[in-house]
Each structure stands twice: as structure tokens, then as C-alpha cells.
């Protein structure tokens, strides 16, 4: 496992209602964001944590070969962050998505419009919806 600079407890995809597993952000990626001055991406790590605290849905697979064991965690954090000190309401009709590799490494995070038909599912997600908070 590569070194993580921060880690979170997330619902386990194997047993979302009863078990958790550790997920985290690689220090190497964090340092890229820090060095390049990507304030919004860094500050949104707060949204990442909130998404794991209040997960709305888990999607298995990233919709491409060899990524069936990856997951997408979906949330709706109460705020968006432009920097660590600037917070705004979340984008309208959007969900926060966190992409997680099979070893628990968090690979990417961002807002994405939600589907109109399924409240907890982002647009253009091609994996399998394996869990929702209302199930």
C-alpha cells in the first residue's frame, strides 16, 4: 500500500450496513495539489470526509475494463469549498463523488450532476449501484 497522508473510515463495499474499511489519500497526490496551489481540490478533502461520514450510495466499478473492483462513494456534503477558508452552498442538483481503488486509495474526488431519475446516482455512472442509504 502506498503511503497515505490522511485516512477515513468508509462503509465497506462488502457489508455496507455493518462494516467499515480504511480509505486514504496518497501523500504523493496531496503534495502535487499543494505544490501546484490547487486550493479547491485540497479544501474539498473536507467534502471527501463528509461523504464517507454520510454516504448516500456506493457504486461498484468505474465502467471500464479492469476497474470492476473499484468503487465510487456518493455524498451530498452541506457545503462546497473554494479554499480552506471560503465555503459556499453545494452546487445545485449535484452530488459529490469519491473514486476509491481496491486497496482503499482515494484516487479522485469532485462534484458531478445527479441523474434526474435516481436521486443518489450521478450522471454517466456506468458501474453497479450496490448500496444506498435508503435501502
Amino acid at each position, binding site marked *: 500500500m*502506498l503511503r497515505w*497522508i*490522511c*485516512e*477515513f473510515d468508509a462503509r465497506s463495499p462488502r457489508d455496507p450496513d455493518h462494516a467499515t474499511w480504511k480509505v486514504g489519500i496518497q501523500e504523493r*497526490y*496531496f503534495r*502535487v*495539489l*499543494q*505544490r*501546484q*496551489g*490547487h*486550493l*479547491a*481540490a*485540497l*479544501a474539498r*478533502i*473536507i467534502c*471527501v*470526509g*463528509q461523504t464517507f*461520514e454520510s454516504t448516500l450510495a456506493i457504486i461498484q466499478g*468505474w*465502467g*471500464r475494463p*479492469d*476497474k470492476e473492483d*473499484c468503487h465510487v462513494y456518493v455524498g451530498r456534503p452541506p457545503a*462546497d*469549498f*473554494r479554499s*480552506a477558508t471560503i465555503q459556499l452552498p453545494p*452546487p445545485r442538483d*449535484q452530488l459529490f*463523488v469519491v*473514486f476509491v*481503488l481496491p*486497496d482503499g*486509495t482515494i*484516487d*479522485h474526488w*469532485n*462534484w*458531478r*450532476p445527479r441523474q434526474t431519475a435516481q436521486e443518489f446516482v450521478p*450522471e*454517466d455512472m*456506468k458501474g453497479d449501484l450496490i448500496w444506498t442509504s435508503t435501502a
Partner: protein
Amino acid sequence: MDIDGVAQLLRDNPAAEEFRPYCHLSPEADALTVYFKGDADFSKRLTDSITLFLAIDTHEVVGCRIKGIRSILDDLPNFLRVQHGAIDLSVVFLSFRSAVDGEEGRRTLNAMARAAQSHQMTLEPVEA
């Protein structure tokens, strides 16, 4: 780590004051993430291989994520002159043009290739 812990992490590790364009290759995800601007953004899928990052306030394209990048990168050095092991990022964008349907998609890729060229962005080999 709880939210207070994240906030403390951000305070202890302040970001550079000025945004600089970058690309980040994730071998584990087989994906390349590129940002030209640091605006707060959201994602929108362009094709199965390319997701665009659009500024929340203006919907301007500020970056993208290219998936399934490994096969492209493996092939490129066979056709390009590669300096110091780095690949011109604009060429990576142009190599995807044929996989994009529609004029809008092609225009978007062209714009990203131009942006990569104007910022002289290159893709460096990933250290093991």
C-alpha cells in the same frame, strides 16, 4: 480522520499561493488528471475515455481526466521524439481526437491540446 483533522492537515500544509497548471498520472487508476486552471469545478463525461472538468461559475473547461491512458503512453514513444523521457501533453490530447464523436468534442480536445502547448506541459515518467 474527522473533519477537524482534515482542517488541521490543510492548515499545517498550506498550498502554494499561485495556481500552476499540472498533470498527474495515476498508474493504479490508469488515468491522467490535468488541470489548466484552479477554479472550483465539477465533472462532466465527454466520452468513455475523457471526463471534462468545468468551472462551476463559468462552465469553462479547466481540465480533464483521461482514462485508459496506459496503452496510449506505451505507444507514443514509438512515434514521437521524446525528450528526457517526457511526452508533450498536447500530443496525448490529439491522439484521442479520433475517439471523440461530434464537432464539439473535437473542438474541446483541440482547445485542451492548445492549452497544454501554451503552458508547455509535459508528462514525466512516474517514479516507482
